[in-house]
């Protein structure tokens, strides 16, 4: 069995390993469950840091920063002497709006579902897939009471991070069923359409697959 050191496994978890080396690890994973656990620890530390440091929605600037970042008064147009209000909040609002506009325009052109389906169809839990929009981390696989399979994942872009639950609906198709903030008030709490936070596994009458079970199903294209 080939030996991989921690730095290599970390680079694999971070999607930073050259393709050939990554392929060697992917192959080895099929025969060595312990390897998946070693990779998972790196994925877990990244997830935990990311979620703990999720940006606050709005944070007031300190007076000192406000003063520093206000544009220099009336350097360009002395006629503006009447209009003394600093214009940076407008600029900030405008750039935020532009950012949002760009994001939604991008989503229209590239339906997010495709990159999500692709990631959930192929990623073992604990691994990260970088997509055009950001990152998708597969978190776990659930077997629902009715035999269908669902997966928990985290999807993050530069500005947001959300946990989601999607279920497999046909070959290679995963549909999003529920979303939660990246740091849920209680572990496992999802906001379903009804508005009640629920534990995903309970809602689906599901159980979480072990990494080994998940690996088997993934290798078989999610068939029994």
């Amino acid at each position, binding site marked *: 069995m080939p030996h991989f050191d921690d730095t290599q496994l970390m680079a694999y978890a971070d999607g930073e390993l050259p393709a050939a080396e990554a392929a060697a690890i992917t192959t080895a994973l099929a025969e060595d469950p312990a390897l998946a656990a070693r990779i998972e620890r790196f994925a877990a530390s990244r997830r935990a840091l990311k979620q703990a440091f999720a940006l606050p929605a709005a944070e007031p600037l300190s007076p000192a920063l406000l003063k520093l*970042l206000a544009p220099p008064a009336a350097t360009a147009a002395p006629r503006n002497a009447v209009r003394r209000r600093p214009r940076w909040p407008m600029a900030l609002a405008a750039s935020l709006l532009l950012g949002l506009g760009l994001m939604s325009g991008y989503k229209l052109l590239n339906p997010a579902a495709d990159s999500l389906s692709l990631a959930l169809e192929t990623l073992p839990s604990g691994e990260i897939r970088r997509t055009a929009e950001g990152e998708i981390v597969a978190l776990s696989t659930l077997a629902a009471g009715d035999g269908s399979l669902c997966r928990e994942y985290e999807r993050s872009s530069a500005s947001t991070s959300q946990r989601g639950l999607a279920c497999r609906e046909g070959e290679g198709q995963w549909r999003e069923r529920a979303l939660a903030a990246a740091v849920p008030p209680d572990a496992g709490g999802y906001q379903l359409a009804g508005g009640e936070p629920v534990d995903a596994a309970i809602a689906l009458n599901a159980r979480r697959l072990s990494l080994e079970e998940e690996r088997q199903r993934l290798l078989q294209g999610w068939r029994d």
Partner: protein
Amino acid sequence: MPGRWLAAGLPLLSMSTTFRDQLIALLPRLKRFALGLTVDATEADDLVQAACERALAKQAQWQPGTRLDSWLFKITQNLWIDRLRARGPVDDLEPALLEQLPAADWQQGFEQSLMLGQVLQAMQQLPAPMRAVLMLVCVEDLSYREAAATLDVPIGTVMSRLARARAALHAILGEHHAPL
């Protein structure tokens, strides 16, 4: 990559937005980075203030088209290291702490819902250069190469620090956090 591109302060708009506007848009991330370095909210505010002052003073040195966020992180990190040096010797990169760490039970490791306070407490036990690389890669999503450029160290150093920092974090947090 659009995520990166948006994160970099919308360089496409740089012709219509000023340096100041872009700096303001990046403040939440700058503040977060400073918090990760200093592990102290007041110190972080002070560091961001100083970094903004320096960034404004040196803005002619920033090359439009390159990542403004990385440039600001670099300024912040350098200021922080300067401050630490002024206070005494900077933490050794191979602290005794790492030698003493118990072998972590990775299987039962920490999970999703760690609070910021818990993580900050753990980060406090890591040397400053490890905090910087954790923040840049795991929180700010810089690639190893970008982190190396930001910190002015070889990529191999980024990787070894990052791996050790994550192992240390895992061991510290794993001790205090009940497995799921």
